[in-house]
Each structure stands twice: as C-alpha cells, then as structure tokens.
C-alpha cells in the first residue's frame, strides 16, 4: 500500500537571475514498510526532496500526497501538526535538545502529542532498549557519543509512531562502525516493526543496506532499483 505519491515535483531556486532546478519533474511512490536510500552526489536534490517530503519546504510545482492528504492544501499550522503525528525526522547533526536527558528527548515529542506521562515513559524506555542504549536514559546528549546520540535521535523519530521516518544523511557524522550499527538498528526496526524509512546518503558503506535505492542527479531520478 503506497503511503507517499509524488507527481511531477519541481523545486526552483530563483534567488539569482538564473533559475536553479533543485528538483525537476520527480515522480515517485513509496510503499508502507519500505527501507529506501536516496543517493546521489552533492547538489543532486536529495535534501531538497526530503525537506519537501517532510513539509519543511514547499515545492515550486507538482503534488505530494501522503496517506490521502494533499500536502499543498495544508496551512502552516496544519502542516506542523501533520509532521508531529505522521513524520519522524533524523538529522545529520543529531539535533537533540542538549538540556534534556536521552529519555526526556524521546518523551518530548510525545508530550507535544499530549500523551500521558506513564505512556510516554514506557514508550521511551522501550525505544531506548530497541536502539541498544537502555542504560543511557538519564544521560544528556553531551554525555553520549555521536553514535549514541544518533540512536536517541532514531528513537525520538519513532516515539510519535509516525507513518514514515525521514533521515537526512544520518551517518554523515559517524565513524564506519557507528554508521553500520545505526543502519542495522534502522533495518531491524523496519523489519520487526514495519517502520518505513527513507534516508538520504552518499555513503557507499551504508547504501547497500537499503532494499530500494533511488539515485538522483541534477534534480531528476536517474535510477530507481529494488535490491
């Protein structure tokens, strides 16, 4: 069952006299439970595509439908709520809240959703166990390694029980071992919990772990292959 349908998506940056096509007529469909890598060289449009998919940026043309909702019709406020309940984010630089512990970082998004304290706590502990750091619940981001911080970020992304998780270069700041571990954890969550992951990478060490690889170049889909 497809959860994301993209039709003729374009994004043009015309801040200079020469328009730059970051995305140029993209047509894609993502099915529930996919584990997809979007790859391509720098400037190919990976981040722009993920930003538009996540509702953080607006397209210049085309349409995106996520689980029956036309993203173009949502107001800024509705878009924020839509992200809160439907999309999980993992960022390249972890982006955890430094003044909160690992568990509080995970609970935070559930609190935004209005979930009760007991439910938040139980879910956060369950997720910390799933990403392999149950003993670091009370640690603040500054006390965790890069790999551990990114695991917390994955747990936070899953805390809201989103329809899919977008991860922009999640392994870019990690060493090889941490990068492989993170992808293994994401892969396991995908298999065991049927969580849909769409991640961008230009890291050859991890892209082979994806089951679908979409290659972008100059804002166009160059290749879309299922492994």
């Amino acid at each position, binding site marked *: 069952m497809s959860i994301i349908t993209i039709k003729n998506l374009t994004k043009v940056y015309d801040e200079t006299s020469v328009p730059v096509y970051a995305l140029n007529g993209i047509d894609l469909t993502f099915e529930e439970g996919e584990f997809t890598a979007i790859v391509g060289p720098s400037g190919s449009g990976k981040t722009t595509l993920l930003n538009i998919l996540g509702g*953080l940026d607006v397209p210049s043309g085309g349409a995106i439908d996520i689980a029956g909702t036309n993203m173009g019709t949502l107001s800024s406020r509705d878009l*924020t709520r839509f992200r809160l309940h439907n999309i999980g*984010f993992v*960022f390249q630089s972890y982006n955890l*809240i430094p*003044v*909160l512990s690992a568990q509080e970082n995970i609970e935070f998004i559930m609190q*935004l959703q209005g979930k009760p304290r007991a439910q938040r706590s139980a879910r956060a502990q369950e997720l910390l166990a799933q990403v392999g750091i149950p003993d670091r619940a009370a640690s603040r981001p500054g006390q965790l390694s890069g790999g551990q911080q990114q695991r917390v970020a994955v747990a*936070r992304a899953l805390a809201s029980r989103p329809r899919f998780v977008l991860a922009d270069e999640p392994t870019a700041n990690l060493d090889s071992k941490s990068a492989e571990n993170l992808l293994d954890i994401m892969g396991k969550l995908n298999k065991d919990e049927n969580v849909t992951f769409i991640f961008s990478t230009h890291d050859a060490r991890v892209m082979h772990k994806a089951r679908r690889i979409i290659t972008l170049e100059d804002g166009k889909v160059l290749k879309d292959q299922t492994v």
Partner: protein
Amino acid sequence: MIFSIAWRNIWRSPQRSLVVLCAICLGLFGGVFSMAFTNGMSLQRIRSAISTEVADIQIHSPEFLAKGEILDTIPAPRAVIARLSALPGVSHWSSRIKINAMAASATTGTGVVLYGIDPADERAVSSIADRVGQGGYLADGGRNDIVVGAKLAQKLRVRLGSKIVLTMQAADGAITGGAFKIAGIYKTDNSAFDETAVFSVAADLRVLTGLSKDAVQEIAVRTADSRAAPAAAARLQAMFGSLVVESWEKSSPELALLESIMTYMMFLFLVIILVALAFGIVNTMLMAILERTRELGMLMAIGMTKTRIFAMIMVETVLLCLTGGAAGMAASAAAIAYFGNKGIDLSSVSRGLSALGYGSLVYPQMDVAFYVALSILIMATGIASSVYPALRALRLQPAKAIRTI
C-alpha cells in the same frame, strides 16, 4: 516540559545568565533601596508634620481661615468636642487659641504664631512635649510660661528662663501684651516651624486677651490611622456643616503634594530601571536564540507549533527576570529591614534637611504592596522583553535553521 526546558536553558550558559541576573538584581536593589530611602524620608516628614504641626484633622470657623482674626472663634466648641468623642476612629483632640503675635526679646523681635493650649490635651495630640530638649513642657497656667522653638530662641538671642514680650490683638480690638518666661525650648525636624510656633497655656492667654472661657480658634484632632484622616474629616464635615473640617492633606497641601510626587517619582524611577533592564534582557535572549537556531529549527520540524515556541521563549525570559527580580527584591528587603530598624544617619547635612522639614535620621521604608506591584511589573517586563526575540525565532525557516552551523 516547556517550563523545565526554559529553566534549564537559562543555565545553559551560566556565565552569561549570571551576568544578566546580577544586572537585574543590582538594578532592582539600587532602585528599590533608593526608593525606600526617599519614601522613608517623605513619610517621616509627613508623620513629623502631623505629630508636631498640623495633626490629622483641624477644625476652624470659615472666617478664621479667611481672616485669621482673634474673634473668629469656633461657635459652641464644647458641643463640637462632645460629638467628636462619639466618632469612631477619633482618638484625641485639643482645643487651641491660635493668634498671630510679635515676640520681642531685649535685642530683637519677630512675628510668631502663638498657640494657647491645654497642656494635658495637647500632649495627646502633639509630640512637641517630647521634643523639648531644654527645660520642660507647660504645666498649669498662671505663670505666663512659654515654650519656644530652638530656632526662634536663637533668632531672639534668648535662652531657657529668659523673658520675652508677646504683643497681640485683644478680644476688644486693642493691642495687648505680656512678658512670658521661656520654660522650655523644643526642636522638631522642621526649623521653619521651630522659628514661628510658640506655645503657652490657654488660660494665661485668656487673661491677657480677654477671650471668653471656651473661646478657641482651632480644634486639632488625631485619628487612630492618619491614612483614614480624609474619610474621618469628611464625616466630621457632614456633622459640622457650618465649620471647616480639613484633614492634613488639605490643611497642609504641601505634604499631600509631597506624598503624591513621591508616588509618581517612585513609579517613574521604577519604569526607567525596568526599561533599562529590558534592553539587556532582549539582547541576552537574542543571543540565546541566535545560538539555538538549529535547535529551534529542529523543534519546528518535529512538530512544535509556533505558539509553543513563542511560549517557551516567553517563559524562559520571564523566569530569567523573576529569578533576578526575586534576588534583587530579597536583597533590597533585607537592606530596608536592617536600615529601617537602625536608620541612616545624615547628621552631617542635618541643617539643610531641617530647613526643608526633614529629620537627619532616615528610616527606609517600603510597603508589601509595593513588592507585589514590583513582581507584576517584573513579570510584565519579562513578557515585553520576550516578544521581539520570540518573533525573531518564529521567523526562522526550519529547513534552513536545521543546517545553521
């Protein structure tokens, strides 16, 4: 959790936060303490004037206020006093003969206001008896004793036991006079009052002027609470329609003006301090937001609404203000309590202060209500200071903010 994050964010950069907190604390301490100092001075001036010069309420005939003649007495003063005694809130009263006179010593002379009093009644209304530094207060009549201010004694070049001649108008319109022996020399905080007000026993003045036994020009009234004097005066005025009843605010408008100017000055001073602090707080919060651009972008991305982000920044700013404000208020309250009990000695400039009617020992004073109002103002300052930084935060584009280095 917004409250928790906001509080922890304050301590994210402890050095910077402490600088801001110290600025708020010291600013408020300086402001509040100097306000308490000035407030204490003006309240002392008002209290001193009420207890020595004007009492809480004065009753006169309208003619006396217009002309000040010796025959402009209060009609049926016994009936007035009988009704005064039944009025709740009225604690003491004293009937006074009040006439203008010339005082002359062997070397010089000057104009004075001569009060003829019943010493027992007057003691309950006025603190002049307690201010007599040399000699004693007035006792029974028949001896032509007089109590004068230190400034007048200095001006007339007389001392305790000296005789001065008082010349005044008699009840029949003729000029009369008599020699009075200085039985006591008083000193209040107001040297101008000390230079003009002299006190003698009413019975002696009646003999001298020919005024009838009950004739008085003024009834001075004390109330249990000076702040209730205007209301009590209004009730008395309703009872004695043919007389003029004035509370201290009316009979001594410069005191009322002093009190109202102090209130405005305190408010203005406070606003200036808080506005100055607000600029520092805005600057600090703008820096904090600049440093947290990526984090704010992340919060927007994961689904934190603009309202919540605005609230988080507002809570953080208000907490910063309240923390510094609480420290500043606690420090100033402690200092005010200490010096309010011990007093601040300004005797080195006592002559100048006395000329203006102020005492040389100042007891800083501030009401609890002021602290409540100040807390509300600090909170309002925090809210106002948070608006611009919060609006700057809301203008961030999450996709760009997340990538900020």
